[in-house]
């Protein structure tokens, strides 16, 4: 696993996602309203919607294309829809945000 630097916490807008590309992997990073940072794969299991552009509410993001609701902790799609995306561990150290890839 590699510790990838995303940037400063202050550069992430609360409740708005940011896409990070690491090699082949597209990752959506989110800063929640309580300043925790979450990261999941940026490809919706439904029709590949960019989750980073979705609406963030609490610990969930809603896909901008067809409204799938996805848990940001484990990448699990919520009922009544099905599926999951990969969830990544995140680390915030002295205002710097990292994703473990």
């Amino acid at each position, binding site marked *: 696993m590699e510790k990838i630097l995303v940037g400063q916490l202050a550069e992430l807008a609360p409740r*708005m996602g940011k896409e990070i590309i690491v090699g082949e992997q597209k990752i959506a990073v989110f800063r929640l309203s309580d300043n925790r940072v979450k990261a999941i794969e940026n490809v919706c299991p439904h029709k590949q919607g*960019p989750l980073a*552009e979705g*609406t963030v509410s*609490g610990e969930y993001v809603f896909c*901008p294309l067809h409204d799938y609701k996805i848990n940001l902790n484990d990448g699990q799609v919520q009922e009544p829809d099905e599926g999951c995306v990969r969830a990544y561990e995140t680390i915030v150290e002295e205002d710097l945000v990292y994703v473990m890839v």
Partner: protein
Amino acid sequence: MKEKLVLIGNGMAGVRTIEEILDRDPDRYQITIIGEEKYPNYNRIMLSNVLQKKMTVSEIITNPLEWYEENQIELINHDPAVHMDTTNKKITTQSGKEISYDKCILATGSRAFILPVDGAQLPGVVGFRTIDDTENMLEASQKYQKAVVIGGGLLGLEAAKGLLDQGMDVTVVHLEKWLMETQLDEKAGKMLQADLEKQGLKFLMEKATQKILGDNRVTGLAFSDGTTIETDMVVMSIGIRSETTLARTTTIEVNRGIVVDDFMKTNVPDVFAVGECAEHNGNVYGLVAPLFEQGKVLADVLTGKEAKPYQGSTTFTSLKVSGCDLYSAGNIRETEGINSIEAFDGINYTYKKIFVRENQVVGVVLYGDTSEGNRYYNILKKNESIEEYTPVSLLHMVGEEASADVSEWPDDEVICGCNGIDKGTIMTAINEKDLTSVADVTKHTKAGGSCGKCKSVIGDVLAYALGGEVVSAPTGICGCTDLTRDQIVTQIYAKKLTSSDEVYRELNFTNPEGCPKCRPAINFYLNVAWPKEHEDEKESRYVNERLYANIQNDGTFSVIPRMRGGKTNPQQLLLIAKVAEKYDVPMVKVTGSQRIGLYGVKKEDLPKIWEELDMKAAGAYAKAVRSVKTCVGANFCRFGTQDSMGLGIKLEQRYEFIDTPHKFKMGVSACPRSCVESGVKDFGIIGVENGFQIYIGGNGGTEVKEAVLLTTVETEQEVIDICGAMLQYYRETGIYAERTAPWIERIGFEVVKEVLLNPEKRQELLAALDQAVEGRRGNPWDEVVEDNKTRQELYTVGRA
């Protein structure tokens, strides 16, 4: 020829009687209703909620103007009947209209009784009876600090609470030892007072008002004990008097009210009376339940049905002030032969007292917990014998389990006391009409439509009827709340909520950060309510409106530059071509609204493309005023009567970049051939020889709706002004994501028309619009291009 039925008094009892008649025999009468107030029939009870800002005036209208039209009822409104000739069967109104009748119903209600003391006529002394009274009070509460309410009865306390909610310093003056003395015993009355004091109301008990002080306006009150109090406003709420002025000019027998028999007949042939103006068996009622019972009897009589004689009513009272749950019904005085049993729970602060005569419950008072009110009311009404209960078991016989289980209730158990609707009737309606929400049940049976206290029980019956499944009542704007748009917006103003977080917190949304449905909606309502104070919340906007570009199915975006009126030029075309080539734009297409779109653009390229295009956004991504379609019109077309392109450009320039509840599309054609399909536009213009026809509410989307002709005007300026007024009216009253067609249907075309064609209202709306959007109408593309932080935050992708 149909018989002519004339109703005098466009209030609750009269109109209910008409509804009952229409239910029984819709074609029997040619009906005329004469009303004194300027509103269609409304739910007077809910004025307390309007004053407490829990509801809006439009929400309490029970029968809008369309109802009168649909039922072919002639409404002579805002024009009271002043003369009645019972020999020639003719009525004259204030404006001089003469209406003849075959049958006449008097339902003139009552008036607030004004104490006959010095100063009672001073400005600032008001009653609490009508919408106008309520609006006066709301207005005064903005200007003045102190209010006194004379009378600690139901109406007085609801008025006092309403004024307190408006931030006034309110004192209730009451003559008796305890509040609501006709409905409560001393103990409950004092508990109520303590609870209201906690909410901030002040009380002066056992005080008789002697004089109202003031020269040009009320300044205070003087009491019989020599003391005085300062105040800016006095609400008189010491009782009501039947309105019988008209009847008294005739030979109709009038006592306290208009005297009627068991079939609501007066002593004069073909004249009937119902409601608060009527006196039956020496009783005049001041609550709705009896009036509705009377209405049913009268409807039977007037449609030739066999009518059961009216035998008087058992009434009940509850107070519409949150935090003070009380319920009172029947006889609550311990006179001879009446005994009582009571229970007081000092921990939960609840109290109940039951009054018994000869093994029958004759009265009940509940305070703190009123869930058993309905049960006791049913025992009362049915005169059930209570022989088998010991006194203590009577108090507790409807323990928690029993009262909650509606499935066990017999069919004749009354659920809605105001309207006298029993469980059986509700069950039948649910099954026959496939009802799934409390609102539906109210619509079809009227249960829950008056004071609304029984709504939770209706919910229980509904759940039981639908097999115990909990129904997701589709009343709220989304799954996060049960509140409707109007309730939320009312609270936004009343509580001055200026951010989404506050709205979610104060209005107890189940999901503290909302969902994709309510977040943009709340953000929009806040933008409209507080254009200066509320900062637009980007994180609540849907991606299209956050990035000013439409997201495509593969996660790329589209760029559509503005070309006002669909007019372009070689320079623009060259720029578009250059950019499309440079950024490898996969698709260039002429859009449905006469613009050129670049599709398949990567997010990172958006700001660069915008910068190089140096054109404005067409706003195709937004719920906002969209681009205006035009035909070539008089410039080139041989049929053209007007400069459609010119007007289209002016409209677009004047209103571009204004947010609306849903997209707002316009089209301007220069003749009735309507080449730009003005008939399916939210705001469509058709040029004609002498001016412009304006059509509104056309939608060409999922549900195609033809626009309706609003009016024909002579000048372009009028078109532009009406357009702006409509935009603002739609912004102020529209539900987020509601197109103009359903909006107009909901508000009523006639209402919208009246507003837009009234020059004063139009100017007011225009001014409000300009004020609201001032400083908010820049080209968002430029703003992004110039703002490095936003560019960095929203339009870049990190790579490692």
